[in-house]
């Protein structure tokens, strides 16, 4: 091997081309300029000067346009009427809120006012990151929200969040299909029982890929636990010493067995949707493959936007059991960071933000139900349009989701319950094995957290 002339080392990509130094230099200059501008402009940024006013950072997880608009309008209204306490709106994201908040708490940079959900609060509450709101909130707000809702954000006797929006799980039905079947239409006053529901789905099933119901059970644990409250299923029980333990009793079996039998015995439920999220089932619902889909109440927005013209849909209450229409929910919450130097002002903002009229605006923006008793009386939430009235009628039956305050629940859910329920619903394992895994394996997990 030998090297060719040094001064003629060619451009590797264009061995025969003359060099084009001007273009390269121009490119380099542009890149350097962009870099320098970026650094300079970024370096010139700071966290804002102090003008004597208090500034609170409010991290909201609102994401749909109407909801974001409602949030921003309320912040604007607050800022217009409270010049001494300015609220800065920061948009967060549901997809990564836990990790983001945890890092911010650890680094002492958490927002002052935090939007989250009650089932995400336990770690933060026990970790000392959230302020106890018990003494900070006004009596009006405390009495406006029912105790069942407060219980969802109460840990160790202290209140770590204000529950303000919630949604029951409902059945969304193809109204024409249901009418033509001749089945009795359930109402909140006279809902279907679980056996009646199973019987109706059998009647609605027409074969050839047309099913009475499609259960979207990509995340089967919360759906199973929350709906099982209607049959008296609790699964998580407190022993005399205060420790939690899992028991899988007859009342806990009703819902899982119903779903299992619909899929594997009656063939009235599609097995294909067991691994789907709620949105994934909508094309099949609109396309006439499924007569009903159990979904959160807020899915009405997607349905209203995406349903083909003329598609007739309606909301039905979920089936009732021994405990009536009870079901578990994990409401959206507003909390205050323990590290915030302005907890009182943050609580004042929360009180303003959750006044009945404002709660109605937030609820309509998210297509969910407010927790506030006064807001629930608003005619805008009792209209027949988009079946708001059905959801409002269910509000009194909503309870805290089981186990959300049990330490070790997330691990039990991920490692034990989710695969066990998925296998049971698909027919891979039977009820005995499901029970064994949920209880025996599950209690081993809980034991580690409760030493």
């Amino acid at each position, binding site marked *: *091997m*030998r*090297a*060719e002339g*040094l*001064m003629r*080392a*060619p451009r*590797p*990509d264009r*061995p025969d081309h003359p060099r084009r130094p001007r273009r390269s230099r121009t490119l380099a200059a542009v*890149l350097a300029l*962009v*870099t320098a501008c*970026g*650094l300079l*402009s*970024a*370096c010139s*940024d700071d*966290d804002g000067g102090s003008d004597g006013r208090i500034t609170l*950072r409010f991290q909201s*997880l609102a*994401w*749909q*346009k109407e909801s*974001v608009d409602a949030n921003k309008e309320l912040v604007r209204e607050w800022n217009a009427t409270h010049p001494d306490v300015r609220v800065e*709106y*920061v948009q967060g*994201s*549901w*997809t*990564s809120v836990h*990790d*983001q908040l*945890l*890092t*911010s708490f*650890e*680094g*002492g*940079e958490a*927002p002052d006012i935090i939007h989250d959900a009650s089932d995400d609060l336990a770690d933060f509450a026990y970790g000392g990151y959230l302020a106890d709101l018990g003494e900070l909130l006004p009596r009006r707000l405390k009495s406006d929200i029912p105790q069942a809702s407060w219980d969802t954000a109460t840990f160790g006797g202290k209140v770590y969040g204000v529950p303000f929006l919630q949604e029951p799980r409902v059945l969304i039905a193809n109204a024409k299909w249901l009418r033509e079947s001749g089945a009795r239409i359930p109402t909140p006053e006279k809902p279907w029982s679980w056996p009646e529901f199973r019987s109706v789905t059998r009647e609605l099933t027409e074969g050839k890929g047309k099913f009475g119901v499609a259960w979207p059970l*990509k*995340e089967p644990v919360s759906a199973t636990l929350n709906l099982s409250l209607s049959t008296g299923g609790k699964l998580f029980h407190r022993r005399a010493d205060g420790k939690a333990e899992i028991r899988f009793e007859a009342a806990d079996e009703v819902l899982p067995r119903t779903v299992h039998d619909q899929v594997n015995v009656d063939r009235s439920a599609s097995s294909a949707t067991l691994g789907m*999220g*709620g*949105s994934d089932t909508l*094309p*099949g619902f*609109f*396309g006439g*493959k499924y007569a009903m889909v159990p979904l959160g109440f807020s*899915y009405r927005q*997607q349905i209203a*936007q*995406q*349903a*083909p*013209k003329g598609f007739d849909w309606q909301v039905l209450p979920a089936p009732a059991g021994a405990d009536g229409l009870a079901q578990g929910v994990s409401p959206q919450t507003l909390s205050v960071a323990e590290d915030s130097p302005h907890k009182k002002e943050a609580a004042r903002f929360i009180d303003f933000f959750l006044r009945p009229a404002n709660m109605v605006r937030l609820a309509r923006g998210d297509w969910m139900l407010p927790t506030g008793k006064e807001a629930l009386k608003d005619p805008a939430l009792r209209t027949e349009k988009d079946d708001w009235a059905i959801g409002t009628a269910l509000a009194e039956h909503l309870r805290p989701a089981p186990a959300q305050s049990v330490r070790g629940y997330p691990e039990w859910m991920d490692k034990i319950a989710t695969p066990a329920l998925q296998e049971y619903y698909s027919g891979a394992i039977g009820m005995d094995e499901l029970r064994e895994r949920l209880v025996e394996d599950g209690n081993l997990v809980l034991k580690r957290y409760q030493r």
Partner: protein
Amino acid sequence: MSSRTSRTGGPARAGQYLALLAYLVFLAFPFLWLISTSFKPSRELGSLHPTWIPKDPTLANYRQAFDEQPLLEAAGNSLVAALTAALVAVVIATPMAYVMARHRTLLARAATGWVVVSQAFPFVLVIIPLFLVLKNLHLINSLPGLIMVYVVWALPFALWMLVGYVRAVPPELEEAAAVDGASKLRTLVSVTAPLLAPGIVATALFAFITAWNEFFFALVLLKTPEKQTLPVVLTHFLGAEGAADLGPLAAAAFLATLPSLVVFAVIQKRITGGMLAGAVKS
């Protein structure tokens, strides 16, 4: 090379092309579907029988995406962060790689080992200490802080890549330059650097795309909306439990992929061009 080509039979060659085509389709499918989705009205998004070509194409998703989120501002932030991080990473990594490739000392071997080990640290392990360090430096909620993280994050792999490129440049070329009387600096600038250019460009591209797509550090380190980068802003179209505002999300995601595509299209020739073409004769 030509004799090897001639030995490949017709059916075998057809099979190769078929496999290549299948792979291209596999790669292109999500991107084409993204483009198609971005032009569909919401009612078409819920169709049981979706079509590749929107039946009733609309720009509403793009309008909504721009109306609801500060996409241009976020893209500007992403561009500054990614370009700066890529340039700085390459500027630091190139001389380091040269030393590590040409001088195989104990220190160089230890550094190589450390580079490999550093790749094993997951995000979650480093994020809290990193957050605290940046906080002490008053670099939380600032693009320079994020850029610093991106540089550090890209550096090990950039170094790893460049060491390989440097090793592929025959030392004989540098020796020949020395024989011809070139100084060390002149040799590096006139011989080694041009031959390394494709490697440097590939490494810069890697660092750029890594920073452009990065989400978690940006989410955690940037607090105010006007400083957020594009991947963070894209998540604002996502709700709880997998719900998504699909049309605007597709529109914004398509726009977010464009810079990577453009950068790659512009400089791919520098990457794929023969690195040592014409420099050495056997």
